[in-house]
């Protein structure tokens, strides 16, 4: 038997995430791939709650709990300081949620990407402000229920990957906890690239998505297989590579497992399917090669 995957964890047990937390899975996998020579930046969010109350912490690498909208420039400050100190072998990773990335932190992320500071930015997207108790963000998908969109979100999810691509940064990729090897391979790739790397990481929140606590990985896989969340990379803002050919399951198999979509009407599901199909076609046109993934799913 081979256990190549059993590298040490840098997210320690005993953290305060809800049972089944997708974000905890995401951070665990990312930190594991990054390894011990890493400094991480987190922002006020569930990342802070997971971090633990003084004097205990779940983070096994030096971690700075910065302010909400500045994950990127904080990480950039550290990265540049390390460069000055000649400690560039240390990776700097910024973790921010969808609120901290799509909304309040977008400007500062843009600034860092424009400067191409040498950081890895991981957006842990759970599609709403979950830490404050489920409020709509610009990453919330159309029609989804949140505490501030009780009738369903009237607007579509912002396309953060296209915003990042517009910065011509060396590498951006989507990933999800449902495909852990793909995710970790992308992180390993990032370790070899200088400049601003961006990972849009779909990390379901069982609490906020109104679903059972054992469903985070499965729902992430369904997000990919329904093309709701395709796995792809953008190199230098122009080379698009699709990493995985989805099975193309109908969107309702993804939507209807989640309480936040349970009120959806038939027309709304059809509209989502239409939007998803259109986006997928657009992506395919931009992409070089159809789909291959080194990970074997079976």
């Amino acid at each position: 038997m081979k256990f190549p995957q059993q590298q040490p964890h840098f997210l320690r047990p005993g953290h305060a995430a809800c049972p089944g937390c997708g974000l905890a899975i995401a951070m665990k996998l990312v930190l594991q791939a990054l390894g011990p020579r890493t400094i991480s930046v987190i922002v006020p969010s569930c990342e802070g709650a997971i971090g633990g109350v003084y004097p205990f912490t779940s983070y096994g690498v030096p971690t700075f709990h910065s302010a909400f909208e500045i994950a990127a420039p904080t990480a950039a400050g550290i990265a540049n300081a390390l460069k000055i100190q000649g400690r560039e072998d240390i990776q700097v990773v910024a973790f921010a949620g969808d609120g901290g990335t799509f909304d309040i932190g977008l400007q500062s992320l843009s600034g860092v990407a424009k400067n191409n500071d040498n950081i890895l930015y991981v957006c842990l997207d759970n599609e709403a402000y979950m830490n404050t108790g489920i409020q709509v963000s610009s990453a919330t998908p159309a029609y989804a229920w949140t505490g501030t969109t009780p009738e369903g979100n009237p607007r579509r999810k912002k396309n953060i990957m296209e915003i990042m691509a517009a910065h011509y940064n060396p590498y951006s990729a989507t990933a999800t906890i449902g495909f852990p090897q793909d995710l970790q391979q992308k992180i390993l790739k990032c370790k070899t690239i200088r400049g601003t790397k961006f990972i849009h990481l779909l990390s379901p929140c069982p609490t906020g998505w109104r679903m059972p606590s054992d469903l985070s990985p499965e729902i992430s896989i369904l997000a990919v297989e329904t093309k709701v969340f395709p796995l792809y990379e953008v190199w230098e803002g122009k080379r698009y590579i699709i990493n995985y050919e989805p099975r193309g399951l109908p969107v309702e198999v993804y939507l209807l497992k989640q309480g936040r979509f349970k009120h959806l009407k038939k027309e709304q599901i059809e509209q989502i399917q239409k939007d998803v199909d259109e986006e997928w076609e657009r992506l395919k046109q931009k992409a070089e090669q159809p789909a291959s993934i080194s990970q074997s799913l079976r």
Partner: protein
Amino acid sequence: MKSFITGNHAVAYGVKLCRTPLIAAYPITPQTAIYEKLSEWEASGELKGIMMRTESEHSAMASCIAASLTGVRTFTATSSQGLALMHEMLHFASGCRVPVVMVNVNRLLAAPWGFWADQLDSLSQRDTGWIQLYCENGQEALDSVIQAYRVAEEVFLPAMISLEAFFVSHAMEPVDIPEQDEVDRFLPPLNLPHRFDVERPGFFVPVVPSELYRDYRHLAQQSMESVKEVAQRVDEAFKKQFGRGYGLGEAVMTEDAELVIVTAGSITSTSRVAVKILREKGYRVGLLKIRYFRPFPREWVQQKLRGKKKIAVIDRNFSLGSGGIFGQELKAALVHSQDHPLIFNYIAGIGGVDVTPETIQDMVLDALKRREPVEESIWIKEG
């Protein structure tokens, strides 16, 4: 070596001499010349380090805090709206106990719009936990940058140096630029004990229980209090090495004065002229310049103003609903004074209005005439 340079360029020289390797900034009038000059040196290689051209002042401060916690010396410069945008991070910086040094060119805050000198921008950040210094001229600004690093890096608190728009930032004056090796001798390399260390991973700035938050606030206050002692010691050392010193402030002809003018910033220079003229006319007038505003040098002020009957504080700033901010601070410092001096708070130069020696002379004569306390601030509207 004396050079004829602006206050902004004097600041830039100070930063370069401190070998500050990480500078993060964003352009804003009237600070931009500092940013440009440092960029010029970065491009030419005279400044060894990294210039982070952030997309906002807020991010500039975020980067400075993070870099400082990583263990490098950092600098930023801003003004007015930019400083206001930074507000959140100013608290964060002092909470993180990072010795970031920042220069703020005092400019009025909108609205309405204007670019002129007014100290409200930095004074409205007085509760953010930063050491604050107010400079009279370019030379003092340059020297204060060097001194501020030493003070900040000893007490682990950030320091903000303010100089007024145009009157100081753009005015060209002869400035003595110290030799690099002299500055190197004066300012040791940064040694930050609590920096990020992959060998001993820690979680910085965790959530803490209420009692602990209180205790750390108290600890920070103790450090801030110690600045009064540290700053004087550093200034003494500086004076010894460079022949110039500024102290926590400066008392000019106060010993026999029946009235003392209290100023901060460039109005001090104007006041020096006014005092000289008034003395020639036979008035026993003195001048007290306040350099350190945070921590407020309460004991020093009490000592310098002991026995004085009349004090005229000039404020180029105003807190709506209250008064001039230096005036408030001074009244608070002297509230237990046995002498019960009459303290008059003159508001002059708001929005960059020019304050001339004549304005100050008129003010002094006005104050000398008064026999009763005046609760309200007295607005000078000449000019």
